[in-house]
Each structure stands twice: as structure tokens, then as C-alpha cells.
């Protein structure tokens, strides 16, 4: 059975509730995906991993009071099977590079529509390292 045929559990880490709601709403129409929950900090999300571990974590880069890159390293170290995709309003290449270096398997800038975001997440779950178009442009432009 391939990954895409099994149930994909999704956790969202974003201080903006609207993001969690949007993902939850969208996943409700996507077969094979299950929304586990939305957390305002990475630390809170990791606490939940003790009971249920998601397949994929969609995490913001800018979370007040939380260091997402530190959390990213911890997640990569302690839960290497969880695939973390960063979803951010920051297109700067330094954020993209740092996220990938810290273990993220994708970086999506929040200017994409949900269908495309879900497609990137699906590919990330299947093993690709994915970048949204704006993240690609940023990475290509920088030194």
C-alpha cells in the first residue's frame, strides 16, 4: 500500500486560527486525509504527539513566543517519520533555506490557493521536497 492510499493525518501549527480552519475545511472534502488538530505553538503540537503522531505537520515560520526552527529540529530528531511542511507568509530565501536545513520537507508561501497547497502537501507526504512557486523564485534569486 502506498502512502497516498493510507490515511494521512494532518496537524497545523499556526497562531492564526483561520489557517487551521481553512485546512480543516479543505481536508473535509479530501478523501484519505484526516485533520488531527490545530495548535498555536510547536511545543503544544509536540505534546500532542505523545498520544497521536501525525503523518504531516503544516507549520508557520512566524509564531509569536515559539521558535519554529528549533521545534523543527526537535521534530526531525525525535519524530523523523513525521514530514514537516512550512507554510509561511515569508518568502525570503533565508527562511526557505533554514527550514530545509532544519529538516522541513517543504516550504509553501501563503500566496498559493488551497488546491495547489494540498497538491504540494500530498507530494511532500509521498517523499518529495516541495517548494511553492514563490519559494522557488526566492531560492533561485538569492546567492
Amino acid at each position, binding site marked *: 500500500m502506498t502512502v497516498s492510499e493510507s490515511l494521512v493525518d494532518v496537524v497545523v501549527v499556526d497562531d492564526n486560527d483561520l489557517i487551521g480552519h481553512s485546512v480543516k475545511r479543505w481536508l473535509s472534502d479530501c478523501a484519505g486525509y484526516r485533520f488531527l488538530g490545530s495548535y498555536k505553538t510547536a511545543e503544544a503540537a509536540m505534546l500532542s504527539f505523545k498520544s497521536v503522531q501525525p503523518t504531516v505537520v503544516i507549520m508557520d515560520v512566524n509564531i509569536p513566543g515559539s521558535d519554529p526552527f528549533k521545534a523543527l529540529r526537535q521534530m526531525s530528531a525525535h519524530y523523523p517519520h513525521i514530514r514537516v511542511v512550512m507554510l509561511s507568509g515569508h518568502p525570503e530565501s533565508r527562511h526557505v533555506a533554514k527550514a530545509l536545513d532544519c529538516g522541513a520537507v517543504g516550504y509553501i508561501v501563503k500566496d498559493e490557493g488551497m488546491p495547489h497547497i494540498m497538491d504540494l502537501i500530498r507530494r511532500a507526504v509521498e517523499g518529495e*521536497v*516541495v*517548494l511553492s512557486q514563490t519559494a522557488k523564485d526566492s*531560492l533561485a534569486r*538569492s546567492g
Partner: protein
Amino acid sequence: MEPLQSATMRSDTRHAENSFGRTSLTDPVTDPGYSVRGAPDDSYFRLVEDLPAAIYTTDAHGRVTMFNRKAAELWGREPEIGADLWCGSWKIFRSDAVTPLPLDECPMAVAVRERRAIVGDEILVERPDGSRRNVLPHPRPMFDAAGAFIGAVNMLIDITDRRQIELALRESDQRFRTMFNQAAVGICIVDGDGRLLEVNDRMCQIVGRSKEELVTMTCQSLTHPDDWAGNVELVEKVHRRELHEFSIEKRYLRRDGSWVWVNVSVAPLHDDSNRPHQLVAIVEDISERRSFNAELQRQVTERTAELEHAHRRLRERERLAAMGTLSAGLGHDLANLIMPLRAHLDAMALSRSQEDLAVEIEAVRRGLDYLRRLSVGLRQMAVDITAEPNSHEYTDLTVWWSEAEGVFKATLPRGMRLNSRIPADLPLCALGKTQLTQVIFNLMQNAAEALAHRADGQVCFWAERDPAAAGSIRIGVTDNGPGMDPEVLSRCFEPYFSTKGPSISTGMGLGFVRSVVMSAGGTVTAHSTIGNGATLVITAPSVERSEATRGDCVRAVISLASPRQTSLAIAVFDALGVTVCTNGDGARAQIWVAASAPTDQVSAFLNASASRCVILWQDPPAEETVSAVADAGRIIYCGSNPDTLAIRSCFKRATRLVASPHVGKEFP
């Protein structure tokens, strides 16, 4: 004093027989037959005659009874045999050359009177012509077989030449000593082991030590440890004769523990066999010069920092002014956007038919698309303007304008019209999106300010192929404002030049535009006449779309062990517009990414017709491995555990190498 003897005394046969007898007198210089005066003519006396020393004899009363050629030369005259007393000279002085010495006190007179040999009393003999000779007399008494005193013999050694050499040496030494001691620079003489043998006063001043102390020290104990290695190397070169002399700036340790900067010029002193056995060092205190230089450097750094700070503030002010304009316009545009979006959403809530709902959804989508374009345009504005432009970026003006237009509209005063004219088949522009946005934003702002009081203000952004040059594109911003007079037109690109006054403008806008355009290989010109508006034209390199998309044809084949590394490599290549080959078309790949590979495989890949370069996911190998590959310049090493920056950097180098026409020619 005894009176001068009469001529009869000179012919005293007893003395003549006991001494030399002969009395004939001739010119000692011109007469070739000249011989010992007063001496018997035999071989013994000829020997005396030929001696290189002056010899003469007196009888027991001191009367000259014989003298040889050298004696006559020394005196500059011929004494009268039997008449002249004590010697042939008329005037003699003590060794101080000042005090006259009476003839009857001369060494010969003392020897005759006291009947003993006199040794070591130097005298000066003055010739009749006034010249003087330094003489070392050796008078000895003479006795007959019975022991009776019969006179004295005196050998006069002319030491004038020796004395003159000694004097010259003494004067030379004195001059050296004076120079050594009174020199304005420090001087020291150092032996082969680096010990200080002699130092002058200035040297003592420089290092704050006494001569007595310094001559117990070595160069090493005086020199700063950090400066010693370089010093030793140079000294050894001098000793090996690889270097004739050298100068070095270094630090000496002063008595008070402080360090003094000196410039030391060193030259060898040679021994008799012409080998350098000592060194003479001229030491110059350069502390002041260095501190002056350091101060100068500090001041330059300070002023540069101030200038940069002022420049930065100007740029910030420019940007703040731009952001202010932008915020005001954007606030209005967003408000205009929110209101219809809410209206459409409200309408959606009330929609009764599926068709009505679809219309409202489409309207909301259009609003969001506009919002997205605004977001992209804003991001282009927000990128750091000091960042290095991407020289490989080409911009599709049609696409770019669709994203940037919203921002530009938002920054123009209300009521001002913004038009555009961009042909569909326009080539791509060599300016990056960000640079283009910043440049056109500046030009738009200038146009907007020129049109500030016009109700019918219009700004037009246009682009066209450059009719004058292939591979070039012209981009312009034209306004219908009041235009510029010739003086303003000629100065408008000068830094800090502004017609708007310092409270409104920094005067850096057009200067910035020009620097950005020039860095992309383009030019910018201004065209205007009074009353007919102004046009700013950028001429920039361009490429046809077919050429620019050639990068899409760049293919890479990736064979890395780790799935994550492979995914990461694919993502980065994808971002750079490189297609990653699947197994089927791997043979057409120009770039091969491998974890590590044997040299023969790398060579084989590089020699394949389509290939351009290899990225090896490993640290650089040994020199011999590199040299084994024919074209090692086309191998790029990522490192064994590269971060994203290293990967991007390597992949960018690879894509540049693939795009390089030079490589294309080498490997058609």
C-alpha cells in the same frame, strides 16, 4: 752646544778608516754614480748605499762622517762631511710637529754624548724646501776593537707614509665616530650571532636603554616575538648572500616594557675574505609615522562610516518617502477591495441559484487575484535594494507588469491615469523583477511629482524593441508634465541634484536608477522639452523568449544514495529551472549529480557529447585525482554534508557552466 766642526775635521783619516772614509760628493738624485759619502769604495759600503733606510755615522764629537743616498733624500740636502753636527738636517721637531728640537738634543746627539743606543723617539725633519718627514731614529754608539768610543751610527726610518695612513685612518675613524654618535637615526653593529657590539646614542634613546645594557643584549631579545621569524629569515638570506641588504618594520622592546615601532635597514660588513661577518643596522623610530597612519586610517574609516551612514539615511529616507506614498495609496486600494469582496460574500449568502453563486464566486476570485498581485508587487518593493542583482534573471515584462501595475497605481495621486503599452512579442528584459520594480517605481514617482497639480496628469509605461540595436530593449516612462529645461535635463542624474527641495527629495532617485540599470549592462537617458512632458528611457539587454527558455532544456541526472538528499537536489534544480531526468533520458543530461564517483566514470560523463559538468556530493578529492580528469574545472564539489546554501551555490555554478557559450564551443 758644540760649535760646528771645521772642514779639516771631515777629512780625519782615523775616523774615515774606522768608518767609511770616502768623501766625494755628488748630486744624490741625478748622479748615477752617486754612492755612500765618505765611505771606502768596497762592496760592503755599496751594500749600505743601496739600503732602503737612511744611514749615517758621526765621529765621537758628533760630526757627520758618512751618509748614504736615502739619508740625503730624507734630509733633502747633503751634509758636509766632518762639518755638520749630529745629523744632516738643519731643522728638526719633536713628534708633536710643533716643538722645535735643538740639534744638540736630537737622539743622535744624546747617543753620542751618553754613548748609549736611543730607541723609539720619533722626530720630524724639515727639509730646506719646507717639507717634513716623520722619522724614527735608531742611533747607536760605535766602539773600536779596544772598546774606545769612536762615534755613532744612526739608521733613520722614514715613517711619513705610515703616519699619513694612520692619520687618514684616524680622521676617517673620527668622522665615522662623529657620524655614528651624532646620527639622527639609531645605528648598531651586530655580530654573526645577533649580539649587539656597538650602538649609538640615538639607538639608546629609541629603546630607552644605556649602551652598557644594549651591548649585553641580542637582536632577538630586543625584537617583538611576532616580528622575529620574518627578521631571521632576511638575516639568513644576507649571510647566504642571497640578499645584499634589507629593510623591515618591526617592534623593539623598550626598557619600560613598551614597544616601539622601528624601520631597520640592514647591510652586511665583510671580513678580509669578503664574507659577511657583521651587520650594520640603521634604526629609525617610526612610531609617530605609524600612529599618524593609524590615525589617518581611523579617520578615513570614521569618515567613510559617516558617509555610508549618511548615504544609508538618505536611502532610508527615500524608501520611507516611497513607503509613505505606497501605504497611502495601498490603504485606499485595499479598502476599495474589501468593500466589494464583502458585498460579493453577502450576495453569495443570499444567492438563490447556482448561477448567481458562480457569478459571485468568480467576482471574489478576481478580487483575490488582484490582492495576490498586489502582494507580489509589494514583495518586489520590499527586497533589500543593496542585494546583489541576479545577473541571470530575465523578466517577462507582460507578466511583471500584471503583478506590479496594482502597486504603481496605488502610489500615483488620485485621478492620475496610468497607461501601458507592451507588445506581446517583446523579448525578455535583462533586469530582474525586483530591480525593474524599484527602477520603474522611482521613475513613476518622479512623473507623479511633476504632475502633482495637473488634473489631467497621465503617466505611460511603455516598452519596445530597440530599433537601433538587436538584443536590446527600450523601456520608458512618459508623463505629460511641465518638462525639464536644458540645465535640469543635463544634471538630473547627478547625485543629490533635485528640483523639489530637500524636504521632498533626497536627489538620489535617478542616480539609484542609473546605477541599477548600469549594473545590468544597460543605460538610462532623459528626454524633455519645456511644456512637453518628459520621457525617461532605459535601454537594457534582452533575450528572445526562445533563447531564454533554453534553460528549460538543461537536464540533470541525479544519483544520490539518500532519498532526502535526492529530493532536496531535485527541489533546488527545479527552482533553478533545470529538468531532472528520469532513467529513460539520463543520457541527454548535461549535469550529473553523484554521491561520489570513480574518476573514469567522471571522465566518461564529461566526454559525452551533451554533458557539461558533474556535481560530486563529496569533499574535494586529492590533487592527483583532480589532475587525472581531463577537464577538472567542470567538476563541482558540494561537500559530503552540504547545507542548502552550499547546494544552491553548487547548482547555480553548474547551471552557469551549462549556459556558458564558452563551454558550448568546446563541446559542440
